[in-house]
């Protein structure tokens, strides 16, 4: 299994390390030529969404990645990655791929002094240590997506078909359950594809 990790800016090395621990091959996506056939899934990491959004367009990665996700490529997005996926953003903030039926609030917890750590249940995974760094949260979830976790009444993890999004950073903890949940998602999609091809 090959999983691409968007490596334009931010904490992509931590995602690659998590994939390595699970025995999955991670592929750095730094430019158009890196995003090729043979990728089974994609991770959009944490970092600054403004930087990634700009580089996606300038490095001509925006259209191919958007098309791939829209066509069903499984994607795990964390923090800034979640902002990239969201269809709507509060306060007239920019949207990017705009594929996931959620509204996001950027810097929802304020500046760095508002960053925190907590442990809360994720549906289907259980209690999970969550690290929030100048994090966004999901202020509303549309009918196409469903909630996986909330903290203080705010949605911090959601899923919509092939898209899994968290406001926190599973790659900053040693707990690999979110990544292995995603790897299972990818395996399932691949199995379904193969079934369709043979049918």
């Amino acid at each position: 299994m090959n999983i691409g990790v968007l490596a334009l800016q931010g904490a992509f090395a931590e995602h690659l390390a998590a994939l390595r621990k699970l025995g999955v091959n991670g592929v750095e996506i730094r430019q158009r030529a890196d995003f090729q056939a043979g990728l089974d899934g994609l991770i959009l990491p944490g970092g600054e969404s403004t930087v990634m959004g700009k580089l996606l367009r300038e490095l001509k990665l925006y259209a191919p990645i958007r098309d791939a996700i829209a066509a069903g490529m499984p994607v795990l997005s964390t923090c800034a990655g979640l902002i990239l996926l969201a269809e709507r953003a509060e306060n007239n903030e920019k949207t990017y791929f705009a594929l996931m039926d959620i509204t996001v609030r950027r810097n929802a917890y304020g500046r760095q002094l508002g960053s925190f750590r907590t442990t809360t249940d994720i549906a289907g995974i259980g209690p999970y240590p969550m690290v929030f760094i100048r994090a966004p949260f999901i202020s509303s979830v549309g009918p196409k997506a469903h909630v996986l976790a909330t903290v203080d009444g705010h949605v911090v993890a959601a899923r919509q078909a092939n898209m899994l999004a968290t406001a926190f950073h599973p790659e900053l903890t040693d707990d690999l359950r979110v990544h292995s949940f995603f790897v299972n998602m990818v395996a399932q999609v691949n199995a379904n594809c193969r079934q369709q091809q043979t049918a």
Partner: protein
Amino acid sequence: MKEKPAATPAKFVAACLQARTIYNRNKDKAMDNRYDLNKNLAQMLKGGVIMDVSTPEQARIAEAAGACAVMALERIPADIRAAGGVSRMSDPKMIRSIQEAVSIPVMAKVRIGHICEAQILQAIEIDFIDESEVLSPADDVYHIDKTQFSVPFVCGAKDLGEALRRISEGAAMIRTKGEPGTGDIIQAVRHMRLIMSEMRRIQSMRQDELFQAAKTLQVDVALVNYVHENGKLPVVNFAAGGVATPADAALMMQLGAEGVFVGSGIFKSGNPAKRAAAIVKAVTNYQDAKMLAELSEDLGEAMVGINEQEIKLLMAERGK
């Protein structure tokens, strides 16, 4: 006759001691947690460019060009160098105006050892404090005890000993000192190469040699052990000081930097927006020479550099 105070029951004393232990443990845990969160913010900046800005307008240009954070300061290092005199923390009002102008993290500088300037920046909820040799040092012996703060600190280093000493004082991020405001990359290169080669040397040591290494570096052996096992610093390590072109930025990335600070190099050049955007892309694709060639085209005038032999004041020598 005065009444003798009743002897304190042993149970009560024990309870007090236990309460104090629990209090201290929780306090330590809370601070540990804070330190981890602060190191985590530095991780989010990796692969990015942090730009010096002195007005909200410049901050917006930097953000639009793809800066992952901005450093708010009244005068960029080249101007500090030209003006001479004592340079201090910037006006909090000016820093606030930059915090309001952009959505990315905002950093600001305090003088080495100036505890109070740091408290002021923490009070205005700065995202990162740079205890910086670019400003005039306030203390020529002690750095700030950064473990006493909730906001993260980045500090400059020109060798591994300095880097690890700053980390034991609580720095959540390290950068090379370079020679700020010169547009000359030689010092940043020297510092990065030295830090990286010292780490490789420690990695190859026998276990029993690490104690001596800690002694010569004047650092805690636990930090030397960390470097021995991991071959890297326990915090993110950026390049800073003298970066003026996309090629400079890519060079620092190839030498092992995890991201780049650009000070005077952008707003002292002919076309700041274009140069800033080119440096951002160069950091992401630092190994693609073909792309670097395209990025280096038509950037207009680079900042006028000063060679290291031509300068009187070596800022990198401040704070050890």
